[in-house]
């Protein structure tokens, strides 16, 4: 089993679950398994084309999947998958 770590900003969509075991396969399979368990997460991870959203980074161990095989990157047994979202701190847009 591989482990997928949910970052704190997204845990409100996972009932505060911080990590989930997923079957080995590829990143796409792992994300699908995660979003099947927590459907609210989907729009925060996947864009309208079914790809990982551009404001999300996924790392397998410490490597960016974009420098590997993107969504098809293989996830080995005992691998750890990290979801790193864009965070900006305070407000959605600058005050006018």
């Amino acid at each position, binding site marked *: 089993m591989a482990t997928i770590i949910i*970052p*704190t*900003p997204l845990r*409100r969509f996972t009932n505060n679950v*911080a990590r989930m075991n997923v079957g080995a396969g590829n990143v796409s399979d792992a994300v699908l398994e995660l979003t099947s368990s927590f459907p609210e997460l989907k*729009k*925060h991870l996947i864009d309208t084309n079914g790809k990982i*959203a*551009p*404001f999300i*980074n996924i*790392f397998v161990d*410490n*490597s*960016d999947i*974009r*420098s590997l095989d993107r969504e098809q990157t293989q996830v080995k047994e005992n691998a750890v998958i*990290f979801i*790193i*979202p*864009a*965070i*900006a*701190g*305070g*407000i*959605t*847009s*600058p*005050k006018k």
Partner: protein
Amino acid sequence: MDHENIQFSKQELSRYNRHIIIPEFGLSAQRKLKAAKVLVIGSGGLGSPSLLYMAAAGVGTIGIVDYDVVEDSNLHRQILFGIEVVGLPKVEAAMHRLQNLNPHIIIKIYNTKLTSQNAMSIMKEYDVVADGTDNFSTRYLVNDACVLLGKPNVYASIFQFDGQVTVFNYCNALGERGPNYRDLFSSPPPPGLVPSCAEGGVLGVLPGIIGSMQALEVIKVITGVGEPLSGRLFAFDALTFESKTFNIKRNPDNPLNGKNPTINELGDYDQFCNIQTDEKAIKEITAKELYEWQTRGDDFQLIDVRNLSEYEIVNIGALLIPLSSISTRAMEISRDKKVVIHCKSGGRSARAIRELEEKFGFQNLYNLKGGILAYADEVEPELARY
């Protein structure tokens, strides 16, 4: 950064003694610090610790860009400020505090919003930029200006319990340029998808930790001591105290400095971040008008879309339906009388109204302008503010 001719007074040598006696640091690195010009964008949660440490360390010239004023609700994390400066422009309060900490350095302040029009002229005067801003538009603006000007951008960001630090656009001794923000996040999340700190909150000590790391990286970039966090992203989870450093690379498709660059000047970052400036108007009611409805005994429903923890701090007797569950609880909202929806300051309630109007066709919803804060200001001054 011409540091060879930098001189120190007796007082400065005494002040920086603990730096100078570190063998790997020495007088040479201290000279580089004094020669350096660093621009800090945002003097809030992240800027507070990073400015304090940079000033204390002897960064010779520090510029600060911020157009906000100090509020009491800033003080749980913005340790540059005390109650005596509440209401003052942050840059002025910061300058006073930092000059008091270190009179041997120069502080320049810009009490203005950083925009596509002024960013290049302000930033070109500096060697290093430290981005501690609080919104995606300014993040992309700072990033693009740094890349166009060839400046390193020491990036720090926080949300609730998570922090991120990296050094963008760093040029190493071999002349190799590291990744920038657009390599990491090619576009921002849609507005409303990520709650703001004003809505989602932030643990006060987190910007202290992450802002201090930002200052550390600024000092490393200036002095060349150690390995700057270029090509690596540090992520910290304060809840589990787990941290991880990830490898990040340049993206050949980056429109700024990839294989086929298409951006050669600053653009409209609100538009890029899909921030709607022409959203459909919604009906509004002022706090005073709401009070008139209440005293007149009008028949209307009052709904609060904040979180339970905020409701417990202060409320005005509304039905609590947090924004995250507004659609699933839409059947609790009246259709046959006026409904006033409020939040803290009017943003979330406006989003709730748009969602209810679009999904369910409501036509009887009014947004309380300025939220419960306006109600406290205009109607019930004894209500708690947060």
